């Protein structure tokens, strides 16, 4: 209820953006353009969902961009094994498992370090970011094309249900719905808020803080893994160098959507709204033909303004 109220100014800000861009670009609100908007934010929103969990418990995950690249590289490498001219469900399954498995391993590592050592998550995930990037580049230095026969894998990023709704949008909505239920409707979610609010207090009430932390980092990495597959599929190839700066985009979405950096505050719908606002800005500025240097500046100012508004409201409350 309270959380819903906090979203109102953001919703207003979004509508203002939509109107502004509609004035400049007359096709902006067309159905196809709006669907395309949602499709463009899907990778970021899926990563930002995991990022929201991390920030919520007072952590952060800088490794998402590199893990995304590694997952793509691993998955497409497996896809390219054997006879690439024939499609094989088995190979596809294997590839997806390998990709998500690698992601989960990184999540496990991050989570384990965060829970068991006193290293700050910023540094843990900075380290694992370098390791993941290095591994991706070790597997292949250059982009690997997805064999055109693998139409099923290509469908993950490019197909449209009923010719209208892109598959990545469906995947995103399903994952975010699950993510929201987990955070807002389960005991586990409740514990995450407690850990973010007061770690010691959570420990004193017998919450398994370390385990929760482990799960959060694994979830974040696995969600990133899914995003990595969509990303690779959309690009028809895996790029070991891709995903740079994705962590900042995901953090921006979470924080613009009201997630607090000190932990304990944040929602999945809010994060989605944050991702939508940033996506709208990107798309609108592009379509309005705004020079990319100006795009940087405007994006920076919008993020600052959104967070400033949020902070002010929190202080007044």
């Amino acid at each position, binding site marked *: 209820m309270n959380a819903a109220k906090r979203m109102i100014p953001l919703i207003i800000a979004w509508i203002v953006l939509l109107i502004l861009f509609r004035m400049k670009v007359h096709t902006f609100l067309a159905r196809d353009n709006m669907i395309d908007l949602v499709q463009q934010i899907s990778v970021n929103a899926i990563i930002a969902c995991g990022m929201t969990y991390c920030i919520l418990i007072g952590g952060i995950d800088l490794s998402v961009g590199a893990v995304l690249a590694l997952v793509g590289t691993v998955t497409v490498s497996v896809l390219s094994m054997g006879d690439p001219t024939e499609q094989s469900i088995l190979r596809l399954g294997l590839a997806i498992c390998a990709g998500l498995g690698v992601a989960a391993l990184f999540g496990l590592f991050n989570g384990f370090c965060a829970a068991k050592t006193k290293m700050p998550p910023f540094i843990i995930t900075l380290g694992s970011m370098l390791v993941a990037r290095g591994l991706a580049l070790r597997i292949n230095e250059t982009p690997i094309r997805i064999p055109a026969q693998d139409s099923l894998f290509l469908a993950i990023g490019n197909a449209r249900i009923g010719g209208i709704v892109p598959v990545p949008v469906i995947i995103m909505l399903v994952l975010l719905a699950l993510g929201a239920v987990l955070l807002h409707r*389960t005991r*586990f979610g*409740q514990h995450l808020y407690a850990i973010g*609010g*007061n770690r010691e207090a959570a420990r*004193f*009430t*017998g919450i398994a803080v370390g385990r929760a932390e482990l799960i959060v980092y694994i979830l974040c990495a696995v969600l990133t893994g899914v995003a990595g597959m969509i990303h690779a599929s959309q690009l028809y190839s895996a790029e070991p160098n891709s995903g740079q700066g994705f962590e900042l985009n995901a953090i921006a979405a979470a924080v613009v959507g009201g997630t607090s950096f000190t932990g304990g505050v944040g929602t999945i719908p809010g994060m989605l709204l944050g991702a939508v606002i940033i996506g709208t800005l990107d798309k609108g500025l592009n379509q309005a033909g705004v020079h990319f240097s100006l795009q940087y500046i405007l994006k920076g100012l919008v993020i600052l303004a959104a967070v400033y508004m949020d902070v002010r409201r929190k202080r007044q409350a």
Partner: protein
Amino acid sequence: MSAAPAPAAAPLLALRGVTKRFGGVTALDGVDFELRAGEIHALLGENGAGKSTLIKVLGGIHRADTGTVLIDGAQQSVRGVADADRLGVRIIHQELSLASNLSVAENIWLGREPGRWGLLDRRAMESAAENLVARLGMKEIRDVRETVSGLSVASRQLVEIARALATEARILVLDEPTSSLSESETENLFATLNHLRAQGVGIIYISHRLEEIMRLADRVTVLRDGHTVGTRGIGEVDQHELVRWMVGREIVDYFHRPDARPGAVALEARGLQNEKVRGVGFELRHGEILGIAGLVGAGRTELARTLFGIDKLHGGTLLVDGTEVDLRTPQDALEAGIVLIPEDRQGQGLVMIQTIAFNLALPWAKEWNPFGFPDQHKRGAIVDRAVDAFGIKISGPDAGVDSLSGGNQQKVLVSRWMEHRPKVLILDEPTRGVDVGAREDMFRIIARLVEEGMAVLLISSDLVEVLNMSHRIAVYRDGRIIETLPAESATMETVMQLLTGAQAQ
């Protein structure tokens, strides 16, 4: 060595030979302790005696180096909080531990939320919390859906108590639960404890307020330097004897009210006004202690913060030694000669990750020349003087403050401003968690400084303390001083009447 005769049946809880070391410090050294079902067992001891540590061992927060925990005579291994919880041990810790971003109800059920398959039943949680709060008579808590961050310290303490009592407890431990509660809430709590005792719950009660212990407890165990000094039935001892056990010396008079020799007006407030302060005026003279009596939540802390330049003033004037001052920041206040010792020692007082010496020397930084670090001699001298004057128990000046017990941390906080000889010293709950011996030390020093001309504004929830130390007592309610009484005509009864009477209106 438990002095009590062993009953036929095994005690509800027995701790045997518990030892706990933190680096070089031995916090507990072979402690034995027994708790029977249906008794309130007071645990007493100086600051740093090891009370909280013993409780944390029982609660699974610290692992003991040696020693065993027996419940109903059966040995139990308590490896974590979950184990203790399973055994029916409920603890209210000395430092508040709530998640302030969550609601009252959420905090009460934290870690054991009702629901199926991991899904949360928010409705059940809230109604159960409402029932509980009503059953415990906690009128301070109006809405269980409110987030804890908006609550006063006292209300937070009530939430902690509610949390401990939310589910069936076999052993209930309270580590200084009343340190920020008002009289009426304390009464409520005692009624609840008596009720639980009748139901056969074993209660361990830690407090530095001896009157409370004499009233409430069945037996008392005294700890000193990590050893058990002994256990007695409450009928077998008197207050003086307990003090001697704890401190190792006799204390006849806890309070040292300085001679009344009030001089010129040091601090004058006229119609101070902001969100929580609603028109406060008073005069405070050099060489005088003005006590502020009030129920918890009356807003005394906000008055202190306003006088120190932390909270903004919307209206009214403030004069120090007759000249008007405009306090926008604490720096301004210090400039004008006003010092505040805040009530929240860990939150607002000390830099917990730093050393004792760093914390003691920090206020002196003002006096250094801009390009000079205080030399080790000066720094050492500062530490030595403070440690001597207040009897702070430290292992060395370069030990972390976080290694000190709660009471010793408080002493570091109070002592560091003393030598600055401020014109006006504002003390907000200065003795919170301080043992009787140290309290006596603290008041003796304050009395001496007042006799030398310092003006003191004393805020304390301990009415006895305010009555015995102050020259005049201002009765404070809802952001206003409703009456100022000279010490001679202020008695426990008259002040309580003013407070409760006012409350009834």
